[in-house]
């Protein structure tokens, strides 16, 4: 199996889907001639030209709106928001229009739009360029929300997103673009709503996404040496969310920890925790613990940003807490 980087997986998915379907178009700020500010999409403009790959002005609402309108009228647009935080600039187009138009039209409108954006921190960009924003979109029924953590998942999920007839918010982690991973030979599609059990274990279920998977894995290695066996689950998509896999795991382990690089109150961890409390409470041996960004807001200073971000030690402490009767 070949090894590629997380960012290479993005452009590979776009290349494959654009070659496969002439209706797939791609636009955003500096995505074409410059190949993207994170160098994620080089070569696409050279291959497909200005009809199918376009640079836009700095106009997030116009960009998303054009994506919506083109999707309604037969194209399959992929649009890029340079930073997920900028979704706030155009929140109406995303949560009031893209998410709701099918419902408000009684099913007449179909919006096969993919909105790609880079989220997450650890790179010193400060609070307005570093947030993990997935919860904004989880709270808008009608939007699917994807948070891939590996190159293989980026590839397979982005292809699925482009083929999905619903509006999809595809959140890449900017700190993971250089990470490498194996991808299967041939065409690789990953379905939505299917979690990946990244590590099997007996004693505690740890649910995490993107960069936090790596953090959880490091913690699990150390805990193994202490005789504690961690099961790590990557939901990969938050809408739809595979609670069946998480539930099965919690029934086995009796303990649940979520690790989110996000605001504590109302994060996806709260959703997972509450659903487990709804349906699986009698299997729990201990309270559920959610590890999140300590301050909610992400500070610029390096030591501070490291401090607020969930770490291997935070996960180990949480596991020891839930293992202690």
């Amino acid at each position, binding site marked *: 199996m070949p090894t590629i980087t997380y960012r290479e997986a993005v452009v590979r998915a776009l290349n494959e889907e654009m070659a496969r379907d002439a209706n797939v*178009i791609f636009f955003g700020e500096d995505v074409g001639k410059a190949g993207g500010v994170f160098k994620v999409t080089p070569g696409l403009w050279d291959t497909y030209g200005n*009809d*199918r790959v*376009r640079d*836009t*002005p700095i*106009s997030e*609402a*116009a*960009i*998303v*709106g*054009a*994506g*919506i*309108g*083109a*999707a*309604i*009228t*037969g*194209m399959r*647009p992929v649009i890029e928001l340079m930073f997920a935080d900028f979704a706030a600039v155009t929140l*109406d*187009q995303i949560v*009031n*229009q893209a998410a709701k*138009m*099918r*419902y*408000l*039209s*009684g*099913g*007449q*409108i*179909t919006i*096969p739009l993919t909105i790609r954006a880079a989220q997450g921190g650890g790179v010193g960009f400060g609070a307005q360029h570093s947030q993990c924003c997935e919860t904004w979109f989880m709270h808008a*029924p*009608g939007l699917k929300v994807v948070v891939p953590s590996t190159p293989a998942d980026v590839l397979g999920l982005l292809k699925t997103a482009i083929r*999905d*007839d*619903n509006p999809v918010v595809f959140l890449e982690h900017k700190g993971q673009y250089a990470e490498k991973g194996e991808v299967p030979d041939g065409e690789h599609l990953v379905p939505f709503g299917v979690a990946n059990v990244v590590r099997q274990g007996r004693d505690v279920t740890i649910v995490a996404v993107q960069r936090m998977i790596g953090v959880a894995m490091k913690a699990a290695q150390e805990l193994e040496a202490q005789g504690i066996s961690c099961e790590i689950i990557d939901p990969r998509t938050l809408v739809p969310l595979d609670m069946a896999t998480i539930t099965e795991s919690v029934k086995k382990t009796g303990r649940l920890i979520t690790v989110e690089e996000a605001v504590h109150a109302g994060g996806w961890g709260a959703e997972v925790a509450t659903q487990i409390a709804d349906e699986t409470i009698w299997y729990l041996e201990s309270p559920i613990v959610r590890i999140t960004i300590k301050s909610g807001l992400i500070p610029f200073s390096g030591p501070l940003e490291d401090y607020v971000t969930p770490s291997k030690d935070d996960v180990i402490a949480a596991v020891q807490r839930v293992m202690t009767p």
Partner: protein
Amino acid sequence: MATAALSEQSAAQPAARLDAATRLHMLQQMIEVRTVEAQIQELFLENIIRGTTHLCDGQEAVSVGMAATVKPARGDTVTCTYRGHGHALALGMPIKTLMAEMMGKAAGSSKGKGGSMHLTDMQHGLIGTFAVVGAGLPISNGAALTAQLKKTGAVAITIFGDGTANIGTFHEALNLAAVWKLPTIFLCENNLYGEYSTYEDTAPVPNVADRAAAYGMPGVIVDGQDAEAVYAIMSQAITRAQSGAGPTLVEAKTYRYRGHSRTDPAPYRHAGELDQWLLRDPIRVLSERMIADGELTENALAQMRQTTAKTVEDAVKWAIEQPYPINESVYDDIWVQ
């Protein structure tokens, strides 16, 4: 049509002289819209329609003049604001379907899920009426992009009010349409009031069309009470769009007889203003012209009003008899399965 530093006045353009059949059709449609809006107001007072509504009495010529240029078969699309009943009807939504949607019935255009502010009729090119000011403009650009890429010759018309000319998406959408030379037609219904505020209090330039030059496109003012003039200007804008020259900003000067929404008695109106505008009632403008041209008689006009009143009354009765959607339908159409 060259980009002008100042907006071109419609008086400088030749008026369209449409054939009698088209004129009659537009007149009939205006009478329908007027009658439907009056009925909707009554139904609100009788609590048969809930929520709110934004009526377009006085603005009918913009709806029918625009609609007469739209060809859904080639892929034309329209977006408009929540003051959209007139546009929906003129584009071809059946009166019964509109009434049923107003009442939240399953037989409504959106199966009762949208209401007055979300009328959608894909068959006739109406992508949506939008409840958020300015939301439709960027979306129409997307439809225009499709037309450009697929070379269909289709146009994307987005209709909005004078208030919209101050919101962010107006500026973003005009800019993008001009830069990409999209076949978008920005049709502004300037009825002099953005909700309860006057145009002069909220905009620093005398006409919305004055802003067109800032976005590298022609800005044209048209008499919004003259359906034929609206038709003529829209046709020119469509020809320009189809030539690849890009978008146009059309400002129709018009007036709404009623308040902004159901609960607004419009105390902010200038004294005597409504009476002035009633002299240029769009139905009156076209019918008087047709009578002068020997294409219509007063009797025939009276007959049209009578027949339309009956049609609308029947549509209301029908809609009242329709069932509400079943509770389980609340889960429908959130997703494409």
